[in-house]
């Protein structure tokens, strides 16, 4: 983290150059107002380099990968597998441990279905018993998640519990928006088979203490699954340093295309896992009586894959690498600090989540006294400021905070302090419009 501490936010000149790569940032909305896009937590924009890479794939190499022996098929396969190498390098992983999925939701479902599919007759044949046992889930076993999960890392585990008879438990959230680690020893126990949690809350921006949770999970022999959707786009992530067993993220939140996500898993675990989606590409030998399956990662990539999107995602990794992840982090941190400071000056606004910049990322949720977030978002939208309103697919977290919804601003590398100011200026209209001025 020391290089992050030393890294600088982008200069005005650098910011202008970055923004020049994102054509959409030059458009106006709502009758000529410049777009101020503060909703990158939902999806980020994509730089020309990513779009060019996708276009180049379609215009020059397009072919179904892992099929055919013609030149285009070779080139397409090479492009797809090179993309896997680039993505792997970006997160410090081995190439064969990177599985392309359609999004992070599918990646997380893939893991949950490994558990329930493992219970089927013959599914774990040939797998070392001790390894197979790690995926055996039934009554008396427990799955642990947290109360701040996005529905994508919540519903699949609820469903897995329902299918297997295992019990779902969760780590609570404190009033200031951090995980309540006081419960760690009582929630994660010898009965726990898997612990799934988010690296960074998509609502609160909280950066969770991965090491403490992983240490406890390891001590009881549980597998760990990290939802890294809100961390990989914003900070240097190294799967080896994190020590988790699985990690999932989506491409579209990290300047990459929609339609591609990643599941990273330790190879020995992936190799033990039965397939999720089945069909072409994921097979080894197919007979009418039964079939055998390819090694990971192909085992989990049934059907013609999203090669162009994977290539685009690799271009996004290259783009972020060129910017320098420590600088991306530093830049977004500066924006977050500026927003938190601005909000703190407005007593009628309450930040939901950590109120200072410590262990916090650039998703800032807040509520305005007496005004529904939909109405807040509408006033901001009228000024061209795009934020997210609602429960942000984290309904239990909102319930825990005694809220039905929040307004959330979230940053990416292309945002500027001027945009934070635009948000604050637009926000000042809210009490005026709704007559709640103090």
């Amino acid at each position: 983290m020391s290089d992050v501490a030393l890294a600088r936010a982008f200069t005005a000149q650098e910011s202008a150059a970055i923004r020049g790569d994102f054509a959409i940032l030059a458009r106006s909305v709502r009758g000529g107002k410049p777009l101020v896009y503060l909703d990158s937590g939902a999806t980020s924009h994509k730089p020309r380099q990513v779009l060019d890479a996708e276009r180049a794939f379609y215009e020059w190499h397009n072919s179904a990968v892992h099929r055919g022996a013609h030149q285009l098929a070779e080139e397409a396969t090479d492009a797809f597998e090179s993309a896997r190498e680039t993505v792997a390098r970006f997160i410090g992983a081995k190439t064969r441990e990177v599985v392309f999925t359609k999004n992070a939701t599918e990646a997380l479902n893939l893991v949950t279905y490994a558990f329930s599919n493992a219970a089927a007759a013959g599914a774990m044949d040939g797998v070392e018993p001790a390894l197979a046992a790690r995926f055996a889930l039934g009554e008396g076993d427990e799955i642990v998640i947290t109360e701040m999960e996005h529905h994508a890392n919540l519903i699949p585990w609820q469903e897995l519990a329902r299918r297997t008879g295992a019990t779902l438990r969760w780590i609570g959230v404190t009033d200031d928006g951090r995980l309540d680690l006081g419960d760690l020893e009582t929630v994660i126990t010898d009965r726990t088979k898997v612990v799934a949690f988010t690296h960074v809350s998509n609502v609160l921006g909280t950066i969770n203490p991965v090491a403490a949770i992983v240490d406890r999970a390891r001590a009881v022999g549980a597998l760990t699954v990290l939802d890294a959707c809100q961390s990989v786009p914003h900070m240097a992530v190294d799967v080896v340093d994190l020590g988790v067993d699985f990690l999932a993220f989506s491409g579209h939140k990290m300047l990459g295309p929609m339609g591609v996500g990643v599941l990273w898993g330790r190879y020995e675990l992936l190799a033990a896992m039965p397939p999720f989606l089945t069909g072409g590409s994921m097979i080894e030998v197919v007979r009418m009586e039964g079939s055998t399956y390819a090694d990971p990662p192909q085992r989990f990539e049934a059907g013609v894959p999203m090669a162009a999107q994977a290539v685009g995602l690799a271009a996004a990794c290259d783009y972020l690498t060129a910017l320098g992840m420590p600088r991306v982090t530093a830049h977004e941190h500066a924006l977050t600090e500026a927003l938190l400071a601005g909000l703190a000056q407005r007593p009628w606004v309450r930040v939901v989540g950590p109120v200072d910049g410590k262990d916090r990322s650039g998703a800032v949720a807040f509520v305005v006294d007496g005004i529904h977030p939909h109405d807040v978002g509408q006033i901001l939208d009228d000024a061209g400021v795009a934020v997210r309103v609602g429960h942000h697919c984290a309904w239990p977290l909102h319930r825990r905070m005694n809220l039905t919804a929040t307004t959330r601003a979230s940053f990416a590398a292309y945002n500027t302090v001027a945009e934070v100011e635009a948000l604050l200026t637009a926000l000042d209209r809210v009490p005026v419009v709704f007559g709640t001025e103090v």
Partner: protein
Amino acid sequence: MDLYQEIILEHAKRPHHAGLRDPFNAQVHHVNPTCGDEVTLRVQLSGEGRSAVIADLSYDAVGCSISTASTSVLTDEVIGYSVEQALSTFVAVRRMLTSKGADSGDEDEIGDGVAFAGVSKYPARVKCALLGWVAFTDALTQAGIDISATSAITSNTISSNTISSNTMENS
């Protein structure tokens, strides 16, 4: 911005007929899964079928100014009227809300409902304005009223599943 008419803000601040009351023939609970807004609504009828009069419409709602105000206007526009009249008001309101700005509403037909004409230009907010109205038609159904003719009249505009079909952003 023409969305927040004074009349909407007034209804939102001081919603009419708010609170749950007895007696009631039917109670429904509707949720907007996108934002978590909720309304619990009770209808009390006097009489039978579509000529029955809506004796009371009471509710408990958590929502934005648009949904709160819309439910408030709903009660003004249907309490004391026959089911037949209330459904025709509903159809007119729904037609306006789903017109994408083309239908500015008829004050004689929908009263304060015309203040919501601006909502139709904001597709994401149409479901806010419809939350109470859709709950109301559901409550009528629960109370044994056949509203299928109402759906048929408007099948070319929008159906009562708008609420759920508009929630695709709710990942």
